[in-house]
């Protein structure tokens, strides 16, 4: 009865709070809006169980963040209101008191998530619903998600929040507990799961269900639409663990909590408390009263010093308030220690995440900084804790005096409001500055742990204290103002969290202009080569703009600062009016600053530059297709020669390009007009032809031009076109400044130049995008069976290339071709390049202060004479590596890899056509390389790889892969249809694997493969097209090479290479271009009929093997040899693109291997037996005889066949004595 009364009273009391209803409204609205604006992957429904699960997890994350007040309030209201002497002395048991309060909080919290579901339903079935994306109603979708995802989360989080609050006696502990949960469960969980690789522990730590959502990535569309979340496996354990944590927390609270007067705190409860307590009205341990009639006052004369109120007094007061504020945060337990601990942890665990596919990275400051300086709008970082704590402590500081009950004392002191505001802000700023100093410590520890001793303190100071601190301070000011204006602590927190949420998700809400998202900017990056680059100017402009806003907000907060009993709106407005005369100068100044900076930014982003949102750009692409798509297949002349005069001005971030194209009509009909696609709004001018032509369409907005030729271009005839392109930033746009041309490390791609004809690459590819913008459905990539597409050979056409590049005096400029001449003129350096063999129309210019490593490679006689080799290439090839002088770690292995690759590929695939092979570094964090004809470029991130002596040499492999593109991609350009990635990327990877095997050894190759197989562990849907229609990264870079590697073990290396050579032999750049079908045919020719089934499984259909060794026994024969018996299980499944699985009978050759224990000093196990056996579906027993005692044995030990579960292939051998 009492229990019920307490529950009822609590529930109804909280329903009286505005904040409770606001929370309800927030979740209803979130549920409704988010499912209206979300765009899902194709073929999944909005009300699919997986979608609901995703947004349940998302919603619970928000819930954990903003609703700590409910449990906090329920647990502590009596003490906060100091009513506890009344309630604690009533005859009620601790169990019913705590239990009922907890259950009331739980009921309220659960209701909030029910509101989320109400929002979902409203979104699905309310007015304006997108019915075409809504499947049949299914109660189970809602029930399972609510009961297995949302409810357990709510129970556990409420229990932890309630316990923290009850034990510390402060409602705010509920919030701190929420933040702790998020940090522990989300960032801790993901770190443990992905960075440290402890999957089970990481999954158990995950309270919200992000691991479940991550697993769903691996679901097929059918799964996503139908499969319900169920309690099984790790997830069952997860829910049990969190249930136990809840029970544990509540039990602990039950035993620790006392219905008694609270004197001092200790133990766990103190963890969430500030060290300073709230008001204590009664005297806990008063000194003994003085009963003698002693005089309370002594005769001391107090000097009658009056305060002086001069400007310096206010400065002193600001510092006093700041110091007191800083101390109050610094002395609270979480104030500095949380960030300090996180910083130290981040530094110490550096080795766990500063790696790339198992290769350690150099802890260069530029790389370390990337982890330490996430933008404010990033939520995928552990440093999200800084804004969260800022919100929390801003609230604490604003409410400090009022919560301690001495606000009437401070409010009547002669301290102006602006001093109070500025003092508190300065105090908060000091706290934030200390946190940022911890970031610096984290960086230094990180570098020490990684044995990197080049500490660039100057760069740290600029990036952390110049840039990052500015962002945090702007944010701190905003939340401080919010707390002042809202003037209700929990409401203030909610508003601040919502505003922060807006900053985090503004782009998803469609708000993209940086002027509209508080504190945002155009981004920045630091690179060793380019420094802070041209992006720093727009960054600074935006920060000045936001500083002006911050100043205005500060003035407004000062006007509305509450320092009286009444917080009513009219009183505050009235007071603000009274105070206004004192701010009649600052307020207009602040407004003027805002106006001026608004004008300045707007002038730059919207007038000097064309402001376009993502939707605008999609719209432009759609419009481009709608208007000019009709010209997609009209005959256009081929580009046979490009001559360019390029002037690069690194310090001005500008370039001027004069170009001349030679165009030849290779079609059979005369051509009457020239079509050009250009970058929209790029300064392109001076387009002239060497014959009379008149413009018909000049569309600079969409970037399309048509010129009609007076005299038609006859077949075989040619014409010249001249143009000039100006690259010069006009102020800055909403994206900042194009960083192609920087002080050091300029990189100008051929994309800047006009393209002949309609540019199909601009097409919208996603089906839903096309639908939204009113375009007819079209496959993302032409079908493999599309014969017409094989005749689109524009990308395979070769041209001659010549360029003269001028750059500033100290720099080296590079373009494709042989360097003919360099000279200096007018204080600038010029370089003249010309190709000695034609290249594809894909090139780039580089200019930087490079160091150069040069090496020669002398060709061996080629085994095949497939490629038409110009005579000169019989001479040695000059290998040149242009690199940033400090980034020299990998240069030698790059040279070796390039030499070995050229060696192997010329021997196996044919001659290398050029006399030069160049590799260039450019600014940026990317770890990969990018190949163009005779030129490879890489971002600075590649140079960070620092392979261990016996470890995987990934830079070597990447280099070999890119060299292979000179054959696979540039010599042979496949038709742009499904599966082209197989011919380019898979073949390059497979070729590079051969180089690695030949030079670094087979063991090293296995190391590489096992690293590549880790990608299997990323959840991925089994639903996929067959390899011949490969359409994604995974298929191109993993499945394709694996399939070729498997095939090589069945038919032999030479046979596979024969097939590849066959492909090259038959290739010409004139259409029809080859497809994967041609490769397949070559492979079929090389493969004996008995293994054609394997080709089919690997390439023609999406096959998965499920191979498992159940047990292995061995016994010694009388002869001394060992008889090994394996019980194995084998199945084969074909999965189609929609996810339908079909079991097909298995009658395959599969390797069976038996291994002895690893001998001392040997990396690989000693192979006792490795033979292919013909296996059937189902369980079977295999017996083999080996000469020595076996240790491990199993089926498909080298993982040749695609089996997602690789752990059950091998078993320990049980020896029967």
């Amino acid at each position: 009865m009492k229990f019920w009364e307490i529950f009822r009273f609590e529930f109804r009391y909280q329903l009286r709070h505005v904040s409770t209803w606001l929370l309800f409204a927030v979740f209803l609205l979130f549920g409704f809006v988010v499912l209206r604006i979300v765009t899902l992957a194709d073929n999944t429904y909005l009300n699919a169980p997986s979608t609901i699960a995703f947004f349940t997890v998302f919603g619970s994350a928000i819930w954990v963040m903003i609703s700590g007040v409910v449990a906090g309030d329920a647990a502590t209201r009596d003490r906060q209101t100091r009513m506890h002497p009344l309630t604690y002395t009533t005859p009620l048991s601790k169990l019913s008191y705590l239990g009922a309060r907890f259950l009331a909080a739980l009921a309220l919290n659960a209701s909030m998530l029910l509101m989320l579901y109400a929002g979902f339903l409203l979104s699905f079935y309310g007015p304006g619903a997108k019915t075409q994306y809504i499947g049949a109603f299914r109660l189970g979708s809602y029930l399972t998600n609510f009961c297995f995802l949302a409810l357990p989360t709510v129970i556990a989080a409420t229990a932890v929040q309630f316990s923290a609050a009850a034990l510390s006696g402060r409602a705010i502990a509920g919030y701190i507990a929420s933040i702790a949960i998020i940090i522990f469960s989300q960032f801790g969980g993901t770190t443990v799961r992905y960075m440290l690789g402890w999957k089970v522990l990481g999954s158990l730590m995950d309270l919200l269900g992000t691991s479940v959502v991550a697993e769903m990535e691996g679901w097929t569309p059918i799964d996503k639409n139908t499969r319900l979340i169920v309690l099984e496996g790790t997830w069952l354990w997860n829910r049990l663990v969190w249930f136990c944590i809840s029970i544990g927390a509540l039990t602990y609270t039950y035993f620790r909590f006392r219905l008694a007067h609270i004197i001092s705190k200790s133990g766990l409860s103190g963890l969430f408390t500030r060290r300073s307590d709230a008001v204590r009205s009664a005297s806990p341990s008063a000194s003994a009263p003085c009963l003698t009639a002693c005089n309370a006052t002594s005769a001391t004369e107090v000097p009658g010093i009056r305060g002086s109120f001069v400007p310096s007094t206010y400065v002193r007061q600001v510092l006093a308030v700041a110091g007191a504020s800083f101390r109050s945060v610094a002395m609270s337990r979480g104030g500095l220690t949380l960030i300090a601990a996180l910083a130290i942890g981040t530094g110490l665990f550096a080795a766990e995440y500063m790696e790339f596919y198992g290769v350690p990275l150099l802890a260069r400051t530029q790389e370390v900084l990337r982890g330490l300086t996430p933008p404010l709008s990033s939520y995928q970082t552990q440093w999200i804790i800084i804004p969260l704590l800022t919100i929390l402590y801003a609230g604490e500081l604003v409410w400090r005096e009022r919560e301690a009950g001495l606000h009437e004392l401070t409010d009547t002191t002669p301290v102006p409001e602006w001093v109070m505001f500025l003092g508190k802000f300065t105090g908060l700023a000091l706290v934030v500055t200390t946190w940022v100093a911890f970031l610096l410590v984290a960086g230094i520890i990180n570098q020490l742990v990684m044995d990197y001793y080049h500490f660039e303190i100057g760069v740290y100071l600029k990036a952390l204290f110049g840039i990052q601190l500015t962002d945090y301070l702007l944010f701190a000011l905003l939340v401080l103002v919010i707390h002042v204006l809202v003037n209700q602590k929990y409401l203030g927190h909610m508003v601040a969290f919502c505003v922060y949420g807006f900053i985090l998700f503004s782009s998803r809400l469609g708000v993209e202009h940086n002027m509209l998202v508080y504190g945002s900017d155009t981004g920045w990056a630091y690179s060793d080569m380019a420094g802070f680059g041209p992006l720093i100017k727009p960054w600074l402009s935006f920060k000045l703009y936001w500083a002006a806003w911050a100043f205005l907000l500060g003035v407004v907060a000062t006007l509305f600062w509450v320092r009286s009993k009444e917080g009513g709106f009219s009183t505050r407005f009235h007071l603000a009016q009274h105070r206004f005369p004192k701010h009649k100068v600052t307020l207009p100044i602040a407004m003027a600053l805002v106006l001026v900076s608004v004008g300045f930014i707007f002038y730059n982003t919207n007038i000097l530059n064309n402001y376009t949102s993502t939707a605008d750009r999609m719209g432009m692409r759609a419009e481009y297709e709608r208007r000019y798509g009709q010209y997609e297949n009209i005959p256009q002349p081929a580009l046979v020669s490009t001559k360019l005069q390029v002037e690069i001005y690194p310090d001005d971030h500008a370039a001027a390009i004069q170009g001349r194209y030679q165009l030849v009509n290779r079609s059979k009909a005369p051509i009457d007009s020239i079509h050009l696609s250009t970058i929209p709004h790029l300064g392109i001018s001076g387009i002239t032809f060497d014959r009379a032509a008149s413009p018909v369409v000049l569309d600079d907005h969409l970037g399309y031009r048509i010129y009609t030729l007076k005299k038609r271009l006859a077949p075989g005839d040619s014409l010249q076109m001249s143009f000039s392109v100006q690259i010069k930033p006009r102020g800055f746009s909403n994206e900042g400044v194009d960083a192609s041309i920087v002080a050091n490390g300029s990189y100008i791609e051929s994309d800047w130049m006009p393209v002949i004809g309609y540019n199909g690459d601009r097409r919208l590819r996603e089906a839903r995008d096309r639908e939204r913008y009113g375009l007819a459905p079209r496959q993302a990539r032409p079908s493999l069976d599309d014969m017409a597409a094989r005749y689109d050979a524009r990308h395979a056409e070769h041209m001659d290339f010549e360029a003269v590049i001028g750059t500033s005096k100290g720099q080296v400029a590079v373009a494709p071709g042989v360097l003919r001449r360099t000279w200096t003129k007018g204080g600038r350096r010029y370089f003249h390049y010309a190709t000695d063999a034609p290249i594809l129309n894909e090139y780039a210019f580089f200019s930087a202060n490079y160091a150069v490593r040069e090496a020669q490679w002398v060709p061996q006689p080629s085994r095949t004479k497939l490629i038409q080799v110009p005579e000169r290439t019989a001479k040695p090839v000059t290998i040149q590596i242009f690199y940033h002088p400090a980034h020299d770690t990998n240069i030698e292995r790059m040279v070796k890899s390039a030499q070995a690759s050229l060696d192997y590929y010329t021997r196996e695939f044919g001659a290398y056509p050029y006399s030069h092979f160049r590799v260039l570094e450019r600014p940026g964090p990317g770890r990969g390389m990018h190949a163009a004809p005779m030129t490879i470029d890489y971002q600075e991130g590649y140079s960070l790889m620092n392979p261990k002596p016996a470890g995987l040499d990934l830079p070597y492999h990447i280099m070999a892969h890119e060299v292979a593109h000179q054959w696979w991609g540039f010599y042979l350009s496949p038709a742009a249809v499904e599966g082209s990635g197989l011919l380019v990327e898979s073949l390059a990877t497979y070729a590079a694997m051969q180089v690695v095997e030949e030079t670094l050894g087979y063991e090293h190759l296995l190391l590489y493969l096992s690293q590549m197989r880790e990608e299997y562990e990323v959840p991925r849907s089994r639903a996929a097209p067959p390899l011949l229609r490969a359409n994604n990264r995974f298929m191109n870079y993993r499945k394709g090479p694996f399939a070729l590697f498997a095939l090589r073990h069945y038919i032999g290396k030479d046979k596979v290479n024969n097939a590849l050579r066959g492909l090259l032999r038959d290739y010409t750049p004139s259409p029809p271009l080859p497809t994967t079908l041609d490769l397949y045919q070559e492979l079929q020719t090389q493969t004996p009929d008995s293994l054609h089934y394997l080709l089919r499984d690997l390439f023609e259909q999406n096959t998965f093997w499920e191979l498992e060794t159940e047990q292995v026994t061995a016994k010694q024969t009388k002869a001394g040899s060992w008889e090994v018996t394996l019980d194995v299980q084998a199945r084969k499944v074909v999965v189609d693109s929609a996810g339908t699985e079909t079991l097909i009978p298995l009658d395959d050759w599969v390797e069976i291997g038996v291994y002895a224990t690893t001998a001392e000093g040997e990396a690989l196990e000693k192979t006792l037996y490795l033979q292919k056996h013909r296996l059937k579906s189902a369980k079977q027993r295999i017996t083999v005889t080996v000469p020595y005692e076996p240790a491990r044995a199993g089926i498909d030990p080298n993982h040749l066949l695609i089996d997602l579960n690789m752990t059950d292939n091998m078993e320990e051998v049980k020896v029967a004595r």
Partner: protein
Amino acid sequence: MKLEIKNISKTYPNGIQALKDVTLSIPNGMYGLLGPNGAGKSTLMRILATLQEPDKGSIHLGELDIVRQKEEVRQTLGYLPQEFGLYPRASAEELLDHFAVLKGITNRASRKEVVAGLLRQTNLWDKRKQRLGGYSGGMRQRFGVAVALLGNPKLLIVDEPTAGLDPAERVRFLNLLSELGERSVVILSTHIVEDVSELCTNMAIINKGEILLEAQPLQAMAALKGRIWRKLIERNTLPYLEQVHQVISTKLLSGRTMVHIYSEEVPGKGFEPVEPDLEDVYFSTMAGYYSAHTEQEVAL
């Protein structure tokens, strides 16, 4: 210097009118504001302490307009609220020093001097290093006085300072206050009559937001002379007595009831005249038998 309060009214958003057209003139020295709980004392005090806005009326301290020139007023204001908390982890010396800066005493040496002086004066010197969390009610109250006295205020507002103090602490506290009246305007609000009678040279009685009486205690007591009578009765005869006489107060005495009545004539059998004390003034005023008006009559 004089504090002039003219026609102050204040109504809370919930409709309760806390002050109705209050006008007072408060000279230098101790001024007592006497009234029952809920009479509007604290509202008036907070308005004087710049923490609340009156709806109507004006308040001037000498030349200063308290409603509009809050900041200037605060430079010369000392305020001891009825209820306040302290940072329990701070020591008295630390916190007082902090307040000294807030009160504009920025010179380190003079601040030290003032803080030490005030701690001595409020007898907290020996406990200056002790954390405020361990202070007794009286010590906290004295600490509050020390804060209020910082910066040598010309206007000192003390709201219900003796509530909750034990008798010894109360004596000590009043002694402390009595010294202050010599220098500035000190307004003491209380519902305890003795506080006023012991300390104040001027006083006002307030009830339901209205000033019922503005007087000097001694004069007011003199004016009542011969009009207060008392009688010891059985409790059950009280209703009858109330019908016949103007009862101003009743008090239990050894299980019987001592009744004070107001009567300008001899009330009859069993009543004996009483030398009126301030309590009689207070109760007569509250009961409506004595007012500024009657006082004037007497003065005439």
